[in-house]
């Protein structure tokens, strides 16, 4: 029960500070205790390299037991503001596939945030553990395009 309360308090601090990776104070834990679980947000940025981004499918894999993906939200561009498709069974694990498409005529053709992942982690900051694999991407007519994907700590957090 206490762990849930503590998690909520940490999440509140995250929202209040806007600095996800420094939200939880390491000094709160006894020096000899196991690393505390912390919460953070990771933005998924996609650069379609000048093409209109109409669809993408990306796998994110932590390859670590010290990181769990616990939530997914949509991006900043109107065409990708809704949360992407993902498997709810992936939540709580370290691997997830997110995918979205838009039939809108207004599509991003520059680097933009298409989703945000909420992660629970310990020991190391999350970005050092996450690996990205582009599984598919397409432009307006459905033809495949190359994209560049980058994960960054949300709200200016550090690696």
């Amino acid at each position: 029960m206490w762990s849930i309360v503590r998690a909520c308090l940490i999440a509140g601090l995250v929202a209040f500070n806007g600095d996800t990776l420094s939200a939880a104070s390491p000094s709160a834990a006894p020096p000899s205790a196991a690393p505390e679980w912390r919460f953070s947000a990771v933005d998924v940025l996609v650069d379609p390299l000048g093409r209109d981004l109409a669809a993408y499918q990306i796998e994110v894999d932590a390859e670590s037991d010290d990181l769990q993906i616990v939530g997914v939200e949509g991006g900043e561009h109107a065409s990708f503001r809704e949360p992407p498709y993902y498997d709810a069974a992936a939540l709580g694990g370290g691997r997830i596939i997110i995918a979205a498409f838009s039939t809108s005529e207004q599509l991003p053709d520059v680097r933009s945030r298409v989703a945000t992942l909420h992660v629970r982690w310990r020991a190391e900051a999350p970005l050092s553990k996450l690996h990205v694999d582009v599984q598919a991407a397409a432009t307006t007519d459905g033809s495949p395009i190359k994209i560049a994907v980058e994960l960054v700590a949300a709200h200016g957090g550090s690696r």
Partner: protein
Amino acid sequence: MDEHLDSIALDELRRGEGSAAAREHLDSCEPCRAEADSLAGIVQALRDDDDQGRPVVPPEIDRQVLEVARRRAASIRAHGVIHRHRWLRPAVGMAIAAGALLSMRLSFDALPSPGSRAEKASGVAVTAQQTDLDGDGRVTILDAFALARQPASPSSEIEDERKRSVARIADLAVSVERGA
């Protein structure tokens, strides 16, 4: 443009879209023009409704779909993978161009519901064939996108079915059990 146009490009040209290069290729390529004419005929045939407003799938299309399914299943059994063949184009074109109309005949109802592990486990072989609309051997969000891009049907029933099919394909694409 040296390569023949695929079904998606042909359908775009049919709708007055597509690139100038694709149009130029179509004008100079007899096989592609034949496929374009065939596609246009299929689309026109599928626009005819029965007396209850339901789409009528011509027997010839039913026959072709079954034939394609048989040959594709045989190919998968023989090679263990899904190959993209030129002879598949008419069928893929039908599935894409006719969109939700054909989805009803292709029994998208047989697709597993999101979250149903037992159904996913038993239905992968079937759904891989039914949902790989772009014929790349994988089920990805691009297959859902291909279906979603098709012109809307005037029938709300068909549109609802299409939306459900799009969502099911997308759910399959992101399944962490199955992968892409």
